[in-house]
């Protein structure tokens, strides 16, 4: 049936968005077809392409608007000591919107948790119970202090638009684990899109099949065009008979056109579409979840309900073999604030965002663990940059691209460790500065992919998720 390897690869790519039922990259890898593949070690475990993988799935929790490190995970006694005094870390301080105000301690208290003794703020008391599962990166640096470019940097590895999202790269590299759902699913904040909108989960120049499929739980069409619009003529019977007739028409057409696998792929795409129509509503239907689970995720409280539902759906998607799930906390900029961009009042606005995130994110870790999924699922918590240790207008905090915190947990991640450190102010990364590239390289590595060898030639350049940068952070890997 397949004319050549090249043609076969085309065919697989076209189906490879997760619906092909063929482990795309496994075939690509084993046939040495993946870009730059010379003598790849065979994928033995978890579909690893270049080396043995420690994880096969990823869930990324993205805090949009810039979550403050010094109010959550980056404890600095100096801020408490110098609270209210002029902020003078030495050198010129250049802020996004404002001139530096006084040093401002976090409105939340701090305590130590777990065997590792990690300090956590009272804004994230639930997450504090998981510190021994988590690896913290408190010396993250962003190359931009503007939301749009910085969000791109964390999601696609570039500050410019037009590049594939991390989820797209992972799907392109590994293909799908299931036959009924897309391999890369995105759950935006129910209040709206983060900066850059769907550009954050675009496939860029990769085939469209690898772009994030946006799922809107609760909408009549949770996936774009999943079901026909309300119309009396669009019945199940008309669809069923129609697909049969269409199939006949397409097969007759195909019969006189040998050697074009695209025609076969299109015929198959209708069968795959039908499977998605069955499986998508099932995965979004939470009726089967126990009351205890729903409570765990915070579905019983208005403040945690939205993010909690999305986290619970993320777990259901992962369970069913979705490769990469991205969950957003925070929408676009607007007033009142509906994201983490707390320029005006950190206690009020971070208070709300923190409470809405803390319980659901914790539930996701614990639930994945209880179901044995945490062993091969990587949980990433990140944001586009951090916030300043000094005040803006008395109660808020301005952007801080010089240091912020991300953390990871799950498959292949060493728990209870911290890699790198910011300075005594939580103003600049000081020890082991870490970039999004390093985080991306580490996650790819855990998935069995060498980030320097996962490439796609576009307009004459062998593009990578990590551009020309990135080091695997061995210190946080088991």
């Amino acid at each position, binding site marked *: 049936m397949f004319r050549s390897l090249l*043609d076969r690869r085309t065919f697989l790519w076209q189906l490879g968005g997760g619906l092909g039922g063929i482990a795309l990259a496994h075939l690509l890898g084993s046939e040495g077809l993946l870009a730059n593949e010379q003598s790849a070690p065979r994928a033995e475990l978890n579909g690893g392409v270049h080396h043995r993988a420690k994880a096969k799935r990823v869930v990324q929790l993205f805090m949009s608007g810039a979550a403050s490190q010094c109010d959550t995970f980056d404890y600095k006694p100096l801020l408490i000591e110098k609270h209210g005094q002029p902020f003078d870390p030495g050198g010129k301080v250049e802020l996004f919107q404002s001139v530096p105000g006084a040093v401002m301690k976090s409105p939340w208290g701090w305590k130590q948790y777990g065997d590792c003794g990690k300090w956590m703020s009272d804004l994230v008391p639930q997450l504090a119970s998981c510190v021994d599962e988590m690896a913290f990166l408190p010396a993250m640096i962003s190359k931009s202090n503007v939301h749009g470019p910085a969000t791109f940097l964390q999601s696609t590895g570039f*500050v410019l638009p037009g590049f594939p999202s991390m989820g797209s790269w992972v799907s392109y590299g590994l293909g799908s684990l299931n036959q009924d759902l897309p391999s890369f699913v995105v759950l935006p904040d129910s209040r709206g899109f983060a900066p850059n909108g769907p*550009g954050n989960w675009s496939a860029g120049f990769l085939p469209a099949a690898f772009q994030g499929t946006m799922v809107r739980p609760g909408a009549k069409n949770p996936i774009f065009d*999943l079901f026909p619009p309300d119309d009396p003529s669009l019945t199940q019977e008309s669809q069923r008979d129609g697909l049969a007739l269409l199939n006949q028409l397409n097969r007759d057409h195909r019969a006189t056109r040998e050697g074009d696998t695209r025609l076969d792929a299109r015929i198959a795409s209708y069968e795959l579409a039908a499977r998605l129509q069955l499986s998508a509503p099932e995965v979004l239907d939470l009726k089967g979840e126990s009351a205890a689970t729903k409570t765990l995720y915070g579905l019983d409280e208005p403040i945690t309900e939205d993010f909690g539902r999305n986290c619970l759906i993320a777990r259901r998607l992962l369970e069913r073999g979705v490769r990469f799930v991205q969950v957003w906390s925070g929408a676009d900029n607007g007033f009142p604030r509906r994201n983490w961009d707390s320029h005006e009042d950190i206690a009020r606005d971070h208070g709300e965002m923190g409470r809405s995130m803390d319980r659901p994110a914790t539930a996701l870790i614990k639930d994945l663990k209880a179901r044995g999924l945490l062993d091969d699922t990587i949980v990433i918590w990140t944001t586009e940059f951090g916030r300043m240790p000094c005040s803006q207008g008395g109660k808020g905090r301005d952007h801080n691209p010089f240091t912020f915190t991300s953390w990871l947990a799950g498959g292949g991640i060493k728990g209870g460790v911290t890699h790198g450190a910011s300075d005594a102010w939580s103003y600049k990364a000081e020890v082991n500065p870490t970039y999004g590239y390093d985080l991306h390289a580490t996650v790819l590595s855990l998935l069995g992919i060498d980030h320097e060898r996962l490439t796609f030639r576009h307009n004459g350049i062998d593009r990578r998720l990590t551009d020309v940068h990135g080091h695997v952070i061995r210190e946080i890997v088991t």
Partner: protein
Amino acid sequence: MKTWLMVVLASSLGGIARAADDGSFTKEVAPILEKRCVYCHGETTRKGNLALSTAKTMLKGGDGGPAIVPGNPDESLLIDMVSGDKPEMPQKAPPLSQHEIESLRRWIAAGAPWPDGLALKDRRFEGEVWWAFRPLSRPAVPRVKNLGWIRSPVDAFVLSTLEQKGLTPGPEADRRTLIRRLTYDLHGLPPTPDEIEAFLKDTRPDAYEQLVDRLLSSPRYGERWGRHWLDVVHYGDTHGYDKDKRRDHAWPYRDYVIRCFNNDVPYARFIREQLAGDVFFPGDPNGIIATGFIAAGPWDFVGHVELREGTVDKLKARLNDRDDMLANAMSTFQSLTVHCARCHDHKFDPIPQKDYYRLQAVFAGVDRGDRPRPSPDAVARRAAIVGKRDQAASRLLAIERKIAALSSPEVLQLDQTLKGLRQQLADTPHPAPGSASPTNGYHSHIHPKPEANAWVQVDLGRSLPIDEVRLVPARPTDFRDAPGFGFPTAFRVELADEPTFAKSQIIAQESRPDVPDVEDEPFVVRPPRPTARFVRVSASRLWKRLEDYVFALGELEVISDGTNVARNQPVQALDSIEAGRWSKRNLVDGFDSRHMRPATDDVAEGLRNNLRFEIHRIERERARSLDALIDPTLRAERETAAAELAALEAQVQATPPTELVYAAQPHPPRPIHVLRRGDVEQPGDEARPGALSCIAGLDFEFQLSNPSDEGSRRAALADWIANSSNPLTWRSIVNRAWHYHFGRGLVDTPNDFGRNGSLPSHPSLLDWLAVEFRDGGQSFKALDRLLVTSSVYRQASADNSSHAKVDADNRLLWRMNRQRLDAEEVRDSVLAASGALDLTMGGPGFALFRFKDDHSPIYDYTASEVLDLPGVRRRTVYRFTVRSVPNPFLDCMDSADPNANVPVRNTTITALQALAMLNDLFVVKQSKEFATRLEREFDDPQKQINAAFKLVLGRAPRLDELAAFATYSRQHGLPNACRLLFNANEFLFID
């Protein structure tokens, strides 16, 4: 073991530099190092702190220790790194050959002799010139055996390659296939059933050529090919990024592109217009619009508008913006990835980092924004009102003449006084000119109308008694000589003790048309010694610059107790241009635009100031005396005439002779430096405007008579690109045309002709086409005609399994490529079939979303009501394209991402596409309209289905198909049957 000790021993035992070189080093070893190693391990690059360029640095080694141990290849790190199954070096490149490794080993074993003083250089790009950079010449048309197949030289080139491989061309496609293929190719639309019938019946020998000519002369052609161009230049109707604002005036560029293809504008002209139309063709309405090319790509609103001047991130935003402009130009016109040389020399092509920053310098004065453009309609609208305004003005002038003729002894006396004072001023010597000025002064933003507010103020630091305020006009040296440049025609001078001027004291209020032209003379105010901390000059009617209005001042002096207390004090302004010789702080730097200002105790200047002040005072007094002489009737007449004139003047102002276009906005060029590692915080040498050094015979360092003339930089680049000796330009464009006609370019990486791109499948054909196009009038339509009338193009797309074994990819074109409809073709064809297609051309884009302006604007595609709004059934090329939120239906069909230059559309096949074609509201609605049309035109259900097949698939149904669709239609309705046809592979693929 490789230890320091051994190196020390080896060095002391003779040293490599002293070992005799028998020539093997220069002949064998040096070329390996220079071609494969020195790029990364050179004198300046030193990856891993290792330089292999001299004997000394090689011995010293890098992070891993010394590179070699003379006399002992087995202990030498260099050999270790390049040997083995998976050698570590060279990185990301093929390993060295066994022969090369042996040469290295022999050389080390011989004690690593190195000629005295020899330093190796990176010579990766020396030797044979890369194909794309070679000069163009017209290749001979090859001889072939099967002469009967040849319709044009194009066929000869293709057939010659086929014959060499033992392949034969495919049969000619049937006429029904040909007209469908051609109409989609040239129009992006299906042929109508009548057009198909007419072509099938056309017995003229040149029926096909006639069809081609008909299609090329239709305006649908420009819409189709304009869309291709818009893909390449990444055109969009919003900025992109966060806060993705609308660009409501981008569309004139889109229309310009469509117009150019329809009018068959020669390519060199098309290039020149898009890069510098405003410079080359200043009076041409297209001139400014065409520079929409430069502004076409995404733009970071927050970085450019919200970030403060002087911050590092502002510099980054500008660097990225210029990067987009130059990448757009070089990808589009040169098919090169020049933007790879931003942080370092290009890894694969001979493009040094310096070339990249030369190109940055070309765009150093270009911002993006709405720019007024000449518009014949707007000119006519304005002319009508200007006519009325002029009549009103002459009525008022007649009245003013009557008033001016009034006289009294007092007025005569004052006239005498004024005459004397002016003579005195003329006779008073100027102070000796101070040293030349490095600055011009303060300059406001540029306004489209004179009635705009602009102010600038100086903070004296504390409240001081004020004796005198002097407003020294600007007279910039980097503009045509214009005394009194920017001096407002209506302004006031105010004092206050706090910076907001909530409570202020006005010490002068002037309206220039009423006072004689002060030209270059400073304006001197002497208030009765009030005290104040802030002095503000507010302009309420601005100075006319070119077609726009500005407020500028050379220097502002505030005299208190004989000292200029404004000097070097902080200056604030409502807005300010901070570039080149203009800056707020230059208002109080002690220099006017030309010279250092005279000292405050300069006697000549003191005398002149006294006279200036006195002249202003007498002028005001004379105006008051004259006013007292006017009788009430005349006064009333004047008031009526003045009111009438003011009303018409306001109308004129509200009716500019221009409309707007989102295009390149020229400014004084900012300085550009070569940035180490592309880092704005590590500037190196200043870069001057220029282009690529790898094209032989073209001057890559632009010789500009006035480098501060922004436009001349772009004009020079346009000339460099459109030059007939630039081989990339002509190869690039004919390859794009080939790509769109055949589904794949002769070079199938149309944006990269460098070493990372593909090689041409038919290099001679590519060159022949490039020369033919360049020297034959540069007509796209002629090129299209040449390609689509060829026998190559007319082949059937049917498979040939024996040929497929030789050339599975059909690179040699033994058949035509079957192509899938692109996103626009799908949407336009559905509308064409349903009869809903609206062929209105041009104008603002139609929105397929509900728009809500906000902090971050919202584009909502779930709003179903927009599908019923007027104008949304126009061709898809006229839609309003949003960057951040793509249209889900078109995106799903692989439409071009306006965030990136798209030379080739992806064609993917996904389940989501199947769902979209089945369920999208657009398809469902159009299927209903389609059914309504069929029912209106045909009463018989069988005829309806027959017509539906012809409209969608271009053929009548077979009997079994007719029966099956009739049955289905009876059971589930004709709209559902229509919808199925839109889902057919036969609809979506062009044979």
